[in-house]
């Protein structure tokens, strides 16, 4: 079971309370597809991914980025049992979507960078630690049902 300090719970709750899903979600996914181009393999049906500009302006990618970011909501609501909260999503990513779980880590890194970009100095080392711990737990839970 993951132990969260009160400080960590507060820090994470604050991030989500002020999160602009439309902005952050779309930017994080676009950045992931640009920085780690092999991740584009999962987006064959998403239209023009020809170059960075095309990816950043692609409405299907934007919408999907927002959807993915909302996927974190269930972790915030179930901080003390993230593992089980993601059981069905993990199965989905493994059995239906066939996503290599290393991609969850790549997207997490891009998410942290986009949030750092938005928050500047407010993204303190302590906040980064809590945020990355949170993402690590989610990533682990998402990979758990793979076999």
């Amino acid at each position, binding site marked *: 079971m993951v132990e969260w300090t009160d400080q960590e719970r507060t820090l994470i709750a604050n991030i989500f309370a002020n999160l602009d899903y439309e902005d952050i979600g779309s930017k994080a996914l*676009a950045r992931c597809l*640009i*920085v780690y181009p092999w991740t584009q393999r999962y987006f064959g049906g998403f239209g023009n991914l020809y170059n960075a500009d095309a990816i*950043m302006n692609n409405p299907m990618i934007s919408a999907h980025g927002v959807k993915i970011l909302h996927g974190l909501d269930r972790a915030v609501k179930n901080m003390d049992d993230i593992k089980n909260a993601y059981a069905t999503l993990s199965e989905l990513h493994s059995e239906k979507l066939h996503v290599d779980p290393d991609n969850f880590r790549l997207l997490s890194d891009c998410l942290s*960078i986009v949030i750092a*970009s938005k928050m*500047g100095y407010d*993204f303190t080392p302590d906040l*980064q*630690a809590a945020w990355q711990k949170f993402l690590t737990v989610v990533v682990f839970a998402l990979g758990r049902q793979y076999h």
Partner: protein
Amino acid sequence: MSLTAKDKNTVKTFWGKISGKAEDIGCDALSRMLVVYPQTKTYFSHWKDLSPGSAPVRKHGKTVMTGIGEAVGKIDDLVGGLITLSELHAFQLRVDPANFKILSHNILVVLAGMFPNDFTPEVHVSMDKFLSALALALSEKYR
């Protein structure tokens, strides 16, 4: 995943914009690394103060960024140009190479925070590739 001519140009141009703040970048990146990845503190048990922004952290951040600046200048031959630094890390410091990735990530986070408008996805990918290539060059003499 070697550096293209475009990557090298992007890195040199971006470095030109940020090098004035190299010490701050190094200090912040190192501070974050020690907080977010506490296992990295094991390399600094000889420091009096490991807290973010402390004097030894700032000084060492500057050392690291000076090395990175040197690497930018030798971007056309990182392995050849960084032999001495590689020997230092391999034989004396013996830093587990996994930590290069960790520090690189924190450098990227700091760059995103300090230069949100310049650290575009295209700059991000070139810098990520550069730091990876640099880490590889530093690991060259390990075994």
